């Protein structure tokens, strides 16, 4: 009965439902950002344009860190 009430509470509260979906989506996206960072780092080893490759890797790292920061914020403060 308690479990039933728990789910009823979640589904009756649009905001709580939205928050859960958002956290799941950000987690999945974090995995994608990690794969993107690793792939771009590997591809930059194959073709290395010395003046731009480090900047490109930093961009993808910032993208990954921003995703992780957003996930932490969503988990801790929402």
């Amino acid at each position, binding site marked *: 009965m308690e479990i039933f009430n728990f789910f009823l509470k979640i589904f009756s509260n*649009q*905001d709580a439902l*939205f*928050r859960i979906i*958002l956290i799941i*989506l*950000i987690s999945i*996206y974090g995995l*994608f*950002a990690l*794969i*993107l960072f690793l*792939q*771009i780092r590997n*591809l930059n*080893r*194959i*073709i*290395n*344009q*010395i*003046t*731009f490759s480090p*900047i*490109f890797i930093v*961009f*993808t790292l910032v*993208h990954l860190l*921003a*995703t992780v920061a*957003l996930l932490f*914020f*969503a988990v801790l*403060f*929402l």
Partner: protein
Amino acid sequence: MPGENGLSGEFVISERIPQGTPEPSHKKSVHFYSSLGINPDNVVFENQEGDEEIMLLVRRDLITNVPWILTALILIFIPPLLFLFNDLFSPFFQIAIQTQVVSVLFYYLVVAGFILVEFTIWYFNVGLVTNKRIIDLDVSGILFKHASETKINLIEDVSYSQVGAVRSVFNYGDVLVQTAATQANFEFDRAPEPARIVQIIAEMIGRKPLK
């Protein structure tokens, strides 16, 4: 020891001698948005030999990026437009302002991811022609890459096709490098200035390019 005709030494008659090979000393810097680099400076690749010089760096023409750039711009302007019509949605969605802010930030991260992926696909879809070999790197998604290479002296023919009004106006097309029968053919698709690329490769393999 001199022969009857006074010649001596070793003679190789089957190997093509590169003619008109661009001088490696005239290096030109390439930008991150360069789609054609002739004797590019500051570019190295995996397994590059010590005396190997990159003669050509070919990516898809810059104009081929327009569709995804336009898509990204449209995606960037969607949240401000939604906020303009916020009153229409507010009776149906009761979401806290904090959650809305995180949602918008997440949305912009996804847009940034889209831009990064599209740029990566363009940036790493590259053809390299060195004084020793030809390398084709194809990246058609973030998890798919295909690399192939062949020696310059195995190239049999080089040609290009330029079909359609857009390609003619912006001067880009597909360059096809045909190699010996057992080797795969190479294609630099949507390459800028295809006639110039064909001319350079043809001169490298000792062929007279068509004018």
